[in-house]
């Protein structure tokens, strides 16, 4: 019977090609705008490591100015980064199963047999980084904990950087030169694109991960300053690296992996104890606010999804609503226009349910066509957004382009959304036409 109804739908489309096109277009447009917006929104707001939401925690302490909050109105909570001395103290704890303290620098890397020296954004971090954030490796692996202190000259490259420097070969064992030190490549990452870049949302959460990773302690040895945000509030003289490391400037990100609640409580107590001790020494003048924040809450607290995006999602749904209301209206007009034919079918023995199903199949066919067209339009639209973000901005680092990818799961959801929404829109017209009194439309044409 389904095939029969599908054939009837096609015949019906042929009868009103204009109206049918309008409906398909309305559905497709509504769906396209929704897919586009949701794709971008999803890329910006999704938790890219949700499976570790009950284990991974950002560590923050409010060391800020007693007279003012970290940002203007305090809406971002305590400062998102730590001072060097606080980070070092917390890092010394054995309570976390894994822990990292880290920041980024601009490195200029050269090597024999390589093209000209290039700037490589490099993350200084500790050995646990790779296991903690489930970073995939193409070749080799991360470095062991023993390479952290004293820092060994080891480096891990991103897949892209390995392409650029070594043409994508297995470069494990090769060396790279930086600051007159020879760094040995121990690992090359596979494609890794956490969106947003949750572990460091300074300077834009859509940034791509760094191109290289080296042990954290090199920072102190080579006196490397952060290329990310450094925020200071205390009026203090900083005229040496030692003074800087001892200052109340914040510039380090810290994360811990603690699966058990009891260990988390212990770590929290450890933080609070350190806080009380430091407070006695004259620091931490603000109310106690030492936090362990999981990734989901972290992204929310850091306001990773900006207002624009939420406004656009609202707009997209308003648009979809208008398109669907429009479709309901057009379907109603179309179905009621053909009331005489429906009357004949009823007279010939079609039940209400059969008429309802017949029209629902027609709506379903429309929605499938609309969804496919909508998907096409959305790809075009996303290509346009992509173009806007990439045209003339060659070489700029940042994952904007990645925001505009539709993945297979996204496509599936989009198609389901399209079909479900249209079917929902078609329910009323199909029901209405099934309730028409059969006799009324038979007498005259």
């Amino acid at each position: 019977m389904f095939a029969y109804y599908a054939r009837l739908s096609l015949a019906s489309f042929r009868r009103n090609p204009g109206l049918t096109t309008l409906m398909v277009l309305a559905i497709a447009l509504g769906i396209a705008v929704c897919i586009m917006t949701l794709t971008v929104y999803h890329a910006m707001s999704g938790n890219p490591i949700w499976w570790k939401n009950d284990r991974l925690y950002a560590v923050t302490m409010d060391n800020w100015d007693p007279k003012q909050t970290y940002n203007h109105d305090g809406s971002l909570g305590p400062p998102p980064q730590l001072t060097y001395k606080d980070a070092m103290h917390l890092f010394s704890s054995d309570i976390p199963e894994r822990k990292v303290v880290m920041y980024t620098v601009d490195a200029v890397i050269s090597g024999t047999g390589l093209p000209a020296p290039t700037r490589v954004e490099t993350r200084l971090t500790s050995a646990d980084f790779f296991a903690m954030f489930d970073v995939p490796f193409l070749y080799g692996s991360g470095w062991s904990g023993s390479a952290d202190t004293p820092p060994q000259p080891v480096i891990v490259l991103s897949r892209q950087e390995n392409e650029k420097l070594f043409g994508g070969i297995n470069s494990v064992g090769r060396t790279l030169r930086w600051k007159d030190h020879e760094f040995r490549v121990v690992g090359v990452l596979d494609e890794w694109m956490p969106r947003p870049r949750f572990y460091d949302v300074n300077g834009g959460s859509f940034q791509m991960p760094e191109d290289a990773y080296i042990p954290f302690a090199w920072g102190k040895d080579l006196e490397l300053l952060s290329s990310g945000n450094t925020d200071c509030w205390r009026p203090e003289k900083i005229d040496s690296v030692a003074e800087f490391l001892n200052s109340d400037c914040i510039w380090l990100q810290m994360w811990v992996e603690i699966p058990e609640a009891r260990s988390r409580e212990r770590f929290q107590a450890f933080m609070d104890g350190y806080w009380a001790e430091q407070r006695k020494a004259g620091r931490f003048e603000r109310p106690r606010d030492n936090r362990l924040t999981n990734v989901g809450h972290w992204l929310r607290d850091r306001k990773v999804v900006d207002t624009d995006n939420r406004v656009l999602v609202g707009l997209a749904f308003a648009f979809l609503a208008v398109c669907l209301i429009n479709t309901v209206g057009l379907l109603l007009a179309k179905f009621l226009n053909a009331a005489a034919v429906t009357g004949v079918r009823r007279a010939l023995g079609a039940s209400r349910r059969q008429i309802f199903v017949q029209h629902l199949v027609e709506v379903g066919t429309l929605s499938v066509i609309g969804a496919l067209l909508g998907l096409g339009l959305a790809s075009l639209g996303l290509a346009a957004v992509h173009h806007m973000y990439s045209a003339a901005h060659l070489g700029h680092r940042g994952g904007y382009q990645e925001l505009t990818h539709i993945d297979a799961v996204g496509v599936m959801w989009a198609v389901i959304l399209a079909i479900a929404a249209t079917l929902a829109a078609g329910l009323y017209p199909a029901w209405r036409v099934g309730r028409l009194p059969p006799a009324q439309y038979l007498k005259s044409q």
Partner: protein
Amino acid sequence: MLKMQDVSKIYRTDLIETYALRGFSMQVSAGEFVAVTGPSGSGKTTFLNVAGLLENFESGSYQLDGKDVRELSDDARSHLRNQRIGFIFQSFNLIPDLNIFDNVDVPLRYRRLNAKDRRERIGSALDLVGLSSRMKHMPSQLSGGQQQRVAIARAIAGDPAFLLADEPTGNLDSLMARQVMDLLEQINELGTTILLVTHDPELARRAQRNVHLVDGQISDFRAYEPRAVGAEAGGAALA
């Protein structure tokens, strides 16, 4: 076979109630060819709608094949229409986007017959009306008389016990009208009961029995009179 007892049908609007049928009683036996006549507004179409289970009624009883249809659900009525009743309309009511074959196919589809069965029935119905060569044509490509013959084929393809015809020749010229009436007589002779609603006394004369409606009531029972076999003018009404 069909038995109506004291059937009343009221059309209500905000202001007035109109009795379209008022205490209407009638009985039709299997194999009969009955003409229902009456002036415009006498309740002919209402009678047809009620008899064809297209509309329900307010009071009285209606038995079809000995079964009371008053309390049947919409689905059950649809099923009965599909299995037992065939319709022929004044304006043919072919479905314009479907070709002849598919038009005749419509009631069979709702009966969920298999494809082979349907094809055979459609073929023989169209053979009977002499249009089996036009299966792939669209309704708009046929003349009015041909369209009505397709409608007849559609009505009989499901092998109904009843054929309800509402002014079947109203939109046709006299030659085509005669062909259609010949066809109906032929079908009646094959055993199908026919109820013909018309305002035309000429047509009514070709039926075995006439029922005359005025203001929703039968004004006058006419005696049963067998039709003279093969006679054109047979079944002339008793005046």
